[in-house]
């Protein structure tokens, strides 16, 4: 059982898709490791669905090859690819019972009647809906229907499970539950899964690996923490979480790898660079809203090697455990700061200091 996992179980090589003049997926390489949960994340129209549909065989790539388990599948028709697909709108067959829906894929495989019954029942148990076999899809709730769709996809023991925004049709609370459930199920079964979403929380909470896309290009891929904390460009930093961007110009580079940069108002700030910069180069600092700490002047002993901004609270919104502040600093720029409430939250018009470690001030190319 301890066979090494294939790091390129699914492999896209130079894949590209054009619809007429429109390039939906720019030429790209992408490897999906065996047994992993990979999320394709990006705004609407960035080509996530198209990439998934090419793997499924529902769309032909304009160029490039797709491999599953090292075998090129470009010319394998969809019904021979052995993939489990889950659609946004569940796509259950409305004229068939739940049993027949789940058993559907088994009909086209070498499975005896009794074995089929066992497998369907087991799949229904796996999605925690035993005993609904005789009902029709329309008699189930949205969440239940999506679980049946899941059962239908896993019962055929697919090589890869493909999900295209499977949760977006569900309401908020249900989505959370289903998210956990899909995650657990995937871990239990160990099936390689590709999950498409434009919801960053889904992507960050579920995946082993996140692939951030924009305009058909892969922007960044990596573990959720990696992509979140070490966003490589403005788009990724902006798309994931709440980020602040400050225009900056590189002043000096220091030995410890921290750079001194000048901000728009002329003040100096310390930042950790992503990539190499030249002296005088125009760049941009990104700071996550959660990485900054607010305090009154008396709360802080100004430490060497830390960044401080002075500002005035313009606006705040209370979100339960934490508070979201908008602080106006020099030249009117607003910084978005999210802090846990310690004693009492800061108020509008309070004059505050913001402290941030240079490690969290990431210097990005413009």
């Amino acid at each position, binding site marked *: 059982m301890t066979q090494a996992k294939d790091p390129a179980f699914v492999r896209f090589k130079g894949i590209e898709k054009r619809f007429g003049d429109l390039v939906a997926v720019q030429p790209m390489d992408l490897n999906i490791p065996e047994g992993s949960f990979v999320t394709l994340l990006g705004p609407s129209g960035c080509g996530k669905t198209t990439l998934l549909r090419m793997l499924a065989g529902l769309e032909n790539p304009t160029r490039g090859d797709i491999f599953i388990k090292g075998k090129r599948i470009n010319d394998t028709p969809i*019904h021979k690819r052995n993939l489990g697909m889950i659609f946004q709108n569940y796509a259950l067959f409305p004229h068939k019972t739940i049993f027949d829906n789940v058993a559907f894929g088994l009909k086209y495989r070498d499975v005896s009647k009794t074995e089929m019954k066992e497998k369907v029942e087991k799949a229904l148990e796996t999605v925690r809906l035993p005993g609904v076999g005789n009902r029709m899809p329309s008699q189930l709730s949205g969440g239940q229907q999506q679980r049946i769709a899941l059962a239908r996809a896993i019962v055929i023991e697919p090589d890869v499970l493909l999900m295209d925004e499977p949760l977006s049709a569900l309401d908020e609370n249900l989505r959370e539950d289903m998210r956990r459930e899909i995650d657990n199920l995937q871990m239990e079964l160990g099936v390689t899964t590709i999950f498409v979403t434009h919801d960053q929380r889904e992507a960050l909470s579920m995946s082993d690996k996140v692939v951030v896309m924009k305009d058909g290009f892969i922007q960044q891929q990596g573990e959720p923490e990696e992509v979140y904390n070490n966003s490589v460009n403005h788009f990724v930093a902006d798309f994931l979480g709440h980020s602040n961007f400050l225009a900056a110009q590189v002043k000096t580079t220091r030995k410890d790898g921290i750079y001194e940069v000048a901000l728009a108002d002329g003040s100096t700030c310390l930042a950790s660079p992503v990539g190499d910069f030249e002296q005088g180069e125009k760049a941009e600092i990104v700071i996550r809203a959660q990485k900054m700490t607010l305090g009154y002047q008396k709360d802080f002993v100004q430490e060497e090697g830390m960044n401080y901004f002075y500002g005035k609270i313009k606006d705040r919104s209370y979100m339960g455990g934490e508070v979201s502040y908008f602080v106006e600093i020099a030249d009117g720029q607003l910084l978005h700061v999210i802090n846990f409430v310690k004693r009492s939250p800061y108020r509008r018009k309070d004059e505050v200091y913001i402290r941030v470690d240079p490690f969290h001030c990431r210097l990005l190319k413009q």
Partner: protein
Amino acid sequence: MKEKPWKPWLLLSPSLTAVFLLLVIPVCFVVVYSFWLRAPSGQDIPAFQFGNYAKFFADFFYPVILLNTIRVALETVFICLIMGYIPAYFFYRTESRLKPFLMILVMLPFWISFIIRTLSWINILGDSGLINHLLLKSGLISSPIPMLYNEGAVIMGLIQYLLPFMILNIYVSLDGIDKSLAEAAKSLGCTEWQAFREVTLPLSMPGVSAGCLLVFVLTCGTYLPPMILGGPGNEMIANLIFKRVIGTLDWPFGSAISVILLLLLVIIVYTYNRYMGINQIFKSLSKG
């Protein structure tokens, strides 16, 4: 998504009022007329007697025409179904930008008078029509092939009248089917054809059954194609009614035939509805 069974009825109420005034009341008149007597002088005498009905069933002449009508209607339905499903399915699947244009072409015949469309077949199929003319000219035949005034010509006339109804009914039904259903079926192991048979076809049945019923009922009540394109043996029941009422002005007998046809259609529609369920169409409407 609460089901409101009365919703379609509410939406239908203006048309139901029109139907009542323009259809139900005249039908009542026809029923009353069918019991009247026709004096040898040609006068209609109010009465309540079943003589007109007895006359219809007195020998095989009229019932045979009725059966023929049903047979022709079934043949027409069958051919329209095959000929209609294919373009409807094409419209459902195509992503061509020409689709709206092609859909208009389907409806184009409605813009031309039915009589003219029917008559124009004479110019195409007649002894001196286009086809025979070309064949004669090219020397392939030496005398014109008789193509008109038989059942084939009647059915052709019926098809060109009724095909759009079939196409549109099937298309509406297909259009409501989520395309990802067939994709799901294929991802589970179906070939294109199996996915069609297992998913798309059964889900398009409401449209198919509505289209078939419509074509059947319309065929049973049509008199123009048999009159213009049919021969003496191709008379249908509507021609008979037409002749009685317009030709010999025998209103009571014409009315009786109408009532018989109406009853027969009601029985057929009712039975059909029980087994094929046009109610399904209502259900899907009220769910929306």
